[in-house]
Each structure stands twice: as structure tokens, then as C-alpha cells.
């Protein structure tokens, strides 16, 4: 069988079997592994891990600080909003008051003006009434005079010498009344 000789040839140039079970290399591997582990442990334990831990703690602190300040700002904003709302309500109430006052004042002025106007109107009306009455009276008197004069003229013309002015006047007054 050709392969066996070939395999045997090959076995010479490559290490026999599994290199993992070549016990002659074990002390070497173990030595270097221990060196590596010790070096790595010191690098990590002395430098890397404390640094990462401090960075993480810093970040946690920063985040906490930011959260705290955000909380505070939120509180401040809420307070400001409350104050604003209160101011707004106050201003509204004040405006209401001012409007009410103004309204009352206007009403008062208006009432006064109305009363004054009423009085004026009443006075004017009374005056006019008086004037009308005077006119009526005077007109009634003039009618009577005209009637007296007319009656006297008629009587004079129809029956001259009869009747005097006094009788005629009484008769006209009786006729005008009746």
C-alpha cells in the first residue's frame, strides 16, 4: 500500500498526532499563559478597570445631575406657569372691576342727565302749555270783543236806539257760553 509509506513519510515532517497532546510543550504553554494572565490582570486591574469604572460613575453622576436639573427646571416652569395664570386671573378680575366701575359711573352720569333732561323737558312743556293757554285765553277774549262789537253794530243797524252796550255785552256773553 502506497499510502502507508507516504503517510509514514509525512509523519516525519509534521509532528506526530495531536499537538495538543504533545506533553513536551506543556511547560512552555503553561509558563507563557501564566505570564500573560498576570500581565493582563495587572494591566486591567490597575489601569483599565478603574478608569472604565470612574468613567461610568462620572456618566451616571452627569446623567443624574442632568435629570435633577431637568426636574428642577420643570418645577420652575410649573411655578412660572402658575404665577402667570394667577397674574392673568388677577388682571382679569381687575379689568372686571374697572369695567364695572366705569359702567356705574356712566350709569350715574346718564341718570343725572336723564333727570336733568326730563326736568328741562317738563319745564319747557309747562311753559308751552302756559303759552298755549294764554294764546287761547287771549283768542277767546278777542272773539268776545269781536262778537260784542259785531252784535252792537248789528243791533245799531237793525234797531237804532234800542239797547245799550251793556245789555248787548251780557246777551253775547250768554250766547257764547251757551
Amino acid at each position, binding site marked *: 500500500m*502506497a*499510502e502507508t509509506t*507516504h*503517510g*509514514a513519510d*509525512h*509523519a516525519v515532517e*509534521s*509532528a*506526530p*498526532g*495531536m*499537538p*495538543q*497532546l*504533545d506533553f*513536551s*510543550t*506543556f*511547560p*512552555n*504553554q*503553561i*509558563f*507563557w*499563559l*501564566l*505570564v*500573560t*494572565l498576570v*500581565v*493582563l*490582570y495587572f*494591566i*486591567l*486591574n490597575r*489601569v*483599565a*478597570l478603574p*478608569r*472604565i*469604572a*470612574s*468613567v*461610568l460613575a*462620572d*456618566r451616571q453622576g*452627569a446623567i443624574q445631575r442632568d435629570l435633577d436639573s431637568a426636574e428642577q427646571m420643570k418645577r420652575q416652569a410649573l411655578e412660572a406657569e402658575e404665577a402667570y395664570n394667577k397674574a392673568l386671573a388677577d388682571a382679569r378680575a381687575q379689568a372686571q372691576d374697572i369695567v364695572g366701575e366705569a359702567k356705574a359711573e356712566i350709569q350715574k352720569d346718564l341718570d343725572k342727565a336723564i333727570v336733568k333732561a326730563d326736568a328741562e323737558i317738563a319745564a319747557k312743556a309747562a311753559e308751552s302749555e302756559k303759552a298755549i293757554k294764554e294764546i287761547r285765553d287771549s283768542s277767546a277774549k278777542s272773539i268776545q270783543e269781536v262778537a260784542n262789537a259785531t252784535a252792537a253794530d248789528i243791533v245799531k243797524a237793525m234797531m237804532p236806539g234800542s239797547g245799550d252796550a251793556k245789555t248787548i255785552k251780557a246777551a253775547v256773553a250768554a250766547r257764547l257760553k251757551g
Partner: protein
Amino acid sequence: MAEAESSTGFNIHPMDQFQIKPLFGAGEIHWYTPTNVTLWMLIAVVVATVLLVLGTRGRAVIPSRSQSIAEMMYGFVYKMVEDVTGKEGLKYFPYIFTLFIFILLANFLGLIPGSFTTTSHIAVTAVLALGVFLGVTILGFVKNGTKFLGLFWVSSAPLALRPVLAVIEIISYFVRPVSHSIRLAGNVMAGHAVIKVFAGFAGALGVFSIFPIISITAVYGLEVLVAAIQAYVFTILTCVYLNDALHPSH
């Protein structure tokens, strides 16, 4: 010696990629010889330093890209330790994080074509797992004294069953480092060997090598996932074992 070789001319050596070679020249490998293991572990340390030390040098409140990667990994492992072991386990967080970073970087660096995967070696993962196992066991006895043995005495079971369960619990306790280490090494080794086998097919099939190449791409994607998941699993099992040591009530 059974090479995976057939008469059709396939020449696949899926295990050659795991060979340990001296970096300078050839010769016997002593315990201090700088080898490709040394090189790739050094690269892992350098990458970890660049990522976790240089990447975070800005200490920015708003992180840069590399800083947020570092922070994400920190937060991920920190939360894992805290969730599984509670507050008491956080004291051991630096070591667990070291394990996680080392395994994750070794797995990912191993996926670079032509690189060497340190975590594919049972010697490496066994040291990691034995470290966890011994550390956790010693810690359990130091923290809880003989009460730590209550881990093996299932007090919620019927009395007659307890000795049987105790034997099973003890066996499963001592199998922990074995499965802990072999899971990691086996997963990584299997993935790399599969890719290598498919690559061998691709070399032999000529124009039809497109199919193995598609398969390699798919397996490679799976391997990226496995690399991360195995680092995660190793770390979380460490946390689970640590939790057993800190709270041995069963």
C-alpha cells in the same frame, strides 16, 4: 500513525495548525522558549491594552467608539457577575474580566487566517479551568469552612438517597474542570479542524472547490459566533462555580 489521507490524493492535515513552534530557529522547546504561543498571547495582551487602556484614555462622558466597546464589555461582564453571584462576587470581578478578555481575544485572534489559537490547546484551557476550580474550592472552604461540604449533601432529598446523591455530586464537582477546559478547547479545535478539512477538499476539487469554499465561509461565520459564545460560557460557568463557593446551600 493514522494520517487523514486517502488514495484520491487528499492531503489534509487538520492538526498541523495547532503545532507549537519556536519563534526563533528550530530546536527543542524548553519552558522559557518564546514560541508562537508566546507571540499570540502577547498579541492578545497588546490588543486588550489598546482596546481597554488606549481606547478609554479620553475618559469622555460621551464615549468614542473604542471606549464604548470597552464600556460595553465591562458592563456585560459586570452585570453577569452581579446577576449570578450577587454583590459578594464583585470582589473577584477583575479576575473574571481578565479571563473573559483573554479567552475572547484569543478566540477571535485565532480566527485570523494563518494565526495560532492559544485557546485550542488543552494545556492552556486546563490551566485556566484548574485555576478557577482550585480558586473556587479554596475560597469555598475559607469562606464557609466545613459548611462548604453542604454543597454535596442534598438536604432536600430523602435521607436514603442522600449518600448516593453525594457521590454523584462529588464526581460532578471533580468533572467540572475537565468539562470546563475541554469544552473551550474542543469547540475551538473542532471549528478550526473542520475549516482545515474543507480547505483540503477545496484544494483537491479543482473548479468544484466553490462548494467547499462556500462551506468554509459558513463555518467561519459559525466559528465567529462560537468564539464569542465560548468566552461567554467559560466566564458564566466561572461565575456559577464562584456562586457555589459563596453560597453553598443546596
